[in-house]
């Protein structure tokens, strides 16, 4: 499969590229050059550049969007919201029907509302990001994707993450978020997302929480395991054991 990765030179990108490279042809883009050699072709590209994103998607079978800029208001909206619009326009233009988008957990579960109070938080809730810049810009991107899936034959899988860990670097007693995964384990879900029969997805717009099995039960990764076949590694358990 020919796969366009947007924002592939960031923190998660190299892990995803190494995971996918053995079985896919990769075209990786980012607004800055990668700090290490990545497999496949690399293009400098701003996700907010509509014409550039459309051009980069030519000949692709799938788009994976890893782009994120969370601190500056202009770039956060450019990348997380307009970037999704550009990605979906590119998918429509080239007839690409498989898109994987990414974001933080509070794209749907705003931290003011659920994380402090609740348990068993699932991804299939009405998005309630609040006004946090990162959460809201990603939520608006998700909503744009959802609207496009209502009008076009495109399936979008949204993989939401919270906290990434390098198992080898975890220190005894280290504090951790209620939703953790190792970098390598997180990359594995993208293979599943590219392989899955799109008709096996419940709808054309599906949200998944991607993280290791954790004992406290704050969030639920059950849907990710059940539908995508995701297998959490047991490589971050030292955090609570």
């Amino acid at each position, binding site marked *: 499969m020919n796969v366009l990765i947007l924002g592939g030179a960031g923190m998660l990108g190299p892990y995803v590229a190494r995971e996918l490279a053995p079985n896919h042809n990769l075209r990786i883009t980012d607004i800055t050059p990668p700090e290490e050699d990545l497999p496949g072709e690399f293009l400098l590209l701003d996700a*907010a550049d*509509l014409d550039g994103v459309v051009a980069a998607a030519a000949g692709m079978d799938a788009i994976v969007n890893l782009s994120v800029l969370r601190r*500056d*208001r*202009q770039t956060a*909206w*450019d990348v997380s*919201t*307009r970037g999704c*619009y*550009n990605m*979906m326009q590119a998918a*429509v233009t080239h007839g690409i029907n498989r898109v994987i988008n990414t974001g933080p957990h509070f794209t749907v579960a*705003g931290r*003011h509302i659920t994380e402090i109070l609740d348990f068993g938080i699932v991804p299939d809730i009405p998005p*309630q*990001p*609040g*006004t946090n*810049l990162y959460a*809201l*810009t990603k*939520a*608006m991107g998700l*909503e*744009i994707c959802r*609207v*496009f899936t*209502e*009008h*076009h034959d495109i399936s979008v899988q949204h993989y939401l993450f919270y906290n990434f860990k390098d198992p080898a670097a975890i220190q005894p007693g280290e504090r951790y978020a209620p939703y953790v995964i190792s970098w390598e384990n997180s990359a594995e879900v993208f293979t599943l997302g590219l392989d899955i029969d799109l008709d096996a997805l419940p709808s054309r717009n599906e949200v998944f929480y991607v993280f290791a099995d954790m004992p406290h039960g704050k969030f639920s990764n059950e849907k990710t395991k059940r539908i995508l076949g995701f297998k959490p590694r047991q490589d971050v358990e030292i955090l609570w054991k």
Partner: protein
Amino acid sequence: MRILITSASHDRSAALADHLASHHEVRLTERAHVNTEHEFALSGLGHDRSTNLLTRGIDAIIHAVEPLPEEDVSSQLDAATRCTYNLLMAAAEEGVQQVIILSTLELMAAYPPGYRVTETWRPLPTTQPPTLTKHMAEQVGREFAREGSLDVRVLRLGEASDATVADAVIDALAQPASLAAQHRSKEEGAREPWLITHVGERPQ
């Protein structure tokens, strides 16, 4: 009441300013210069102190969410999302009491003709303006209301005269959204400072 109206270059904003000016202090703003007899402030609605200054001392904002002439879709989307966020964030910081977002009943046009579509129904935007941009502006405003930092009222405008729209705005200004929500909550259990009102005929 001091009222700020956005999208000053749009006919509806100009008409609203004319209607409201007799009983209120009106300030118009736009992302490009506009000639008007009303008080006017040029603002890109950016993330800087100027947007706070634009909203300082304002009691209510009427956010029309209209494009500039010849503006491309991507820029319209940017204005409807990022600029709305900047405006509402500044409004919350400056203690503005109420924001009225002028949206469109085109959002409900995809429901079959003859259906009695109400404000509680899910909007059905297309992937193009104006429904996509108005919908996204609504979504941004909803999060401010959800957090209680602003009273946000959405007027989804259908086929309606300027006078009808002005009357709807005046009604909205007279009844802050939070009070209306509290009143409604007695019947529906809702307590959010967020209200949607359909104005005029739904396009079908």
